[in-house]
């Protein structure tokens, strides 16, 4: 076991699979010589060579397309998109090609690409370095959509993602790269060494795709969330004193419906929280699914706490971010409803 922050964990995941499988290659803007603007691929080029860790031109669509072609030729590409805000130029290649290749060829062709990309706000990144577009990818049949909330899961899920023959879009909540963040920007930063999930095996291990994690059991309310908000929600629940069961979705699609449904059917109340804008965000799917599966157990409307339906405004980051106060207010609302 070692202490790792999420960056270390992601780097270690690369390292472990690259050592194991010579077909794993990495490509992206600034990922090679420099090691990535967030350092997630630091040292990999030195270790595995320039031909397995490729600096790429600034063309997200080209990066994803080239990765698809590499995958068709037997490699196992891991492509980094520098910020999730810049994934859209590659969206057509993801939705029209990567997601459908296996389907349209009945398995004769496929491309096991993993696309990693830092997402989310809280780092003063303004509207073009803060977005959470995961919901859009969950609507594309054939894509596995993942977002870890801690170093242990980040490494284990990323290894699973890279080894999966299905294409995976792997969102990394950059606000928690260096430490768990409870939503209070005025508190001193906390490192991952303070968190049990900051302990990560150095060697190969996996966390399975498609399985949600009950981060904290509870009886009065279920909070369904993922990414940075897993930590914020825990703090918010403590603030309210409500005995919340907190579920980290981890794999958004395909979704682990039964874990969510079992919990909500048990608690009878549900709050969903994510950073992405609310309207048609992934929370909508979660709410629709939960009401369908737990209708007769629900004692209150399912509440969604999310980013406001505006671009992420630079100066109002903390009014925009669904922080403790807002989640706590949501919890109270759900608890008071009857």
């Amino acid at each position, binding site marked *: 076991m070692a202490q790792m922050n999420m960056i270390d964990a992601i780097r270690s995941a690369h390292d472990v699979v690259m050592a194991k499988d010579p077909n794993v290659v990495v490509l992206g803007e600034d990922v090679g010589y420099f090691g990535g603007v967030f350092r997630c691929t630091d040292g990999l080029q030195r270790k595995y060579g320039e031909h397995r860790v490729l600096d790429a031109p600034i063309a997200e669509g*080209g990066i994803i397309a080239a990765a698809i072609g590499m995958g068709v030729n037997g490699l196992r590409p891991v492509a980094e998109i520098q910020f999730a805000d810049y994934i859209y130029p590659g969206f057509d290649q993801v939705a029209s090609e990567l997601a459908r290749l*296996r389907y349209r060829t009945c398995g004769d*062709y496929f491309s096991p690409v993993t696309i990693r990309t830092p997402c989310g706000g809280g780092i003063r990144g303004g509207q073009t370095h803060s977005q959470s577009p995961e919901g859009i990818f969950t609507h594309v049949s054939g894509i596995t959509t993942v977002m870890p909330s801690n170093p242990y899961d980040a490494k284990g899920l990323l290894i699973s993602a890279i080894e999966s023959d299905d294409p995976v879009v792997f969102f990394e909540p950059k606000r928690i790269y260096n430490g768990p963040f409870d939503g209070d920007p005025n508190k001193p930063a906390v490192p991952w060494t303070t968190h049990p999930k900051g302990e990560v095996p150095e060697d190969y291990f996996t966390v399975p795709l498609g399985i949600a994690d009950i981060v904290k059991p509870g009886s009065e309310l279920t909070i369904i969330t993922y990414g940075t908000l897993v930590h914020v929600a825990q703090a918010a629940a403590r603030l309210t004193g409500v005995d919340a069961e907190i579920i980290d979705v981890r794999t958004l699609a395909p979704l682990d419906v039964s874990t969510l449904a079992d919990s909500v059917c048990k608690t009878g109340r549900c709050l969903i929280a994510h950073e992405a804008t609310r309207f048609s965000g992934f929370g909508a799917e979660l709410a629709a699914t939960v009401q369908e599966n737990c209708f007769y157990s629900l004692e209150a409307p399912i509440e969604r706490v999310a980013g406001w339906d505006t671009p992420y405004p630079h100066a109002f980051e903390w009014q925009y971010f669904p922080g403790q106060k807002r989640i706590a207010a949501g919890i109270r609302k759900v608890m008071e409803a009857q």
Partner: protein
Amino acid sequence: MTNRSRLHIPQPSARPGDEPDFSYLNLSPAGSVERPAADARTREIEHLSVELIRVLDDDHRAQGSWNPALEPAALQVALRWLLLTRAYDERMWQIQRQGRISFYMQSTGEEAVSIGQAMALRPGDMCFPSYRNQGLYLYRGSKLVDMMCQCLSNTGDMCKGRQMPIMYHNRDANIFSISGNLATQYPHAVGWAMASAIKGEDHISASWVGDGSTAEADFHHALTFAAIYQAPVILNVVNNQWAISTFQGFAGGERRPFAARGLGLGIPGIRVDGNDLLAVYAATTWAAERARRGGGPTLIEHVTYRGGAHSTSDDPTKYRPKDEWLEFPLGDPLERLKNHLIGEGHWSEEEHESVQAEMRDKVQVAWKEAQKQGTMTEGPYLDPATMFDDVFVETPQHLEMQRQQMLDLES
């Protein structure tokens, strides 16, 4: 406002009712362009992107240093493939017109591109075709029956009914799957070639797009990545003069040939008479050799003409002169190869007619065979329950539930 406009609007040389006019095409005499060494420096061969490499002259004789000097037997085989491709297209068109398949796209007039290039590539090379490369599938070993079954979405369909007609693929023959989205396969070919280089293999890849599709972002990505990493890839632009209703000027072909598109990135461009199988073969051989030797990508523009409608959904008389093809100065690739062989004494009108008949028979036999695996109106039918397979490696729970719902409803 309109009257004051200073915007340039590209104009085709002829519209319905006008005389066809191909004076805009820059044609070099056959044999006039020298063949450089396959490792020539890009800057020294820029003229190849403007001139037109032609081997067959107006008297159907092979001329000049690009003449690949193929054996007569090889050319006879090539002609057979051309004839098969055309016979297939003609029959499938008819079949669609009879309402027996839902859609079709011909490659009429462009057959030499697929056949000439297929001949020049090795089996281990990977092809990323567009929807007008049926000749490529045939040459590389796709069976007529299999292709027809695909068009029928019947039980023999390699796509299990999931794709529209003509969206074939063939893993064994190293031909990629056709996407309905234009140009998306172009950068795949580059990625594939990059992987080949990374693995130290000497397989190359090739891809095809139409003139109109060069405007898409994927074209740019493909060229950029190919140039940067010197990927061993042949990037083909099949300039058949038309997209759907817009002529090649609406893809930027008015001022410079498509072959010149990569020059600014250091990618050599070759403009070739796409209706001259010998020239196509020769250019492809050159580019393949260059790529295999580590010389990187080549962009080949094939100057040809879309002899038929864009697809069975299209009526070209609405936007171009009815008989434009007849006036196309590069003629019909089949006629040209036929006349060449006849001129050389290796073919005759009789042989031609008999092979043509043989090919039509082949197609007809295949069509009968294909129908046995199901038609649009008669079984056997594919099992709709299979539509939930292959979305993921293992079908997840929600899809299994949907499959069950579907079955419950159908029963």
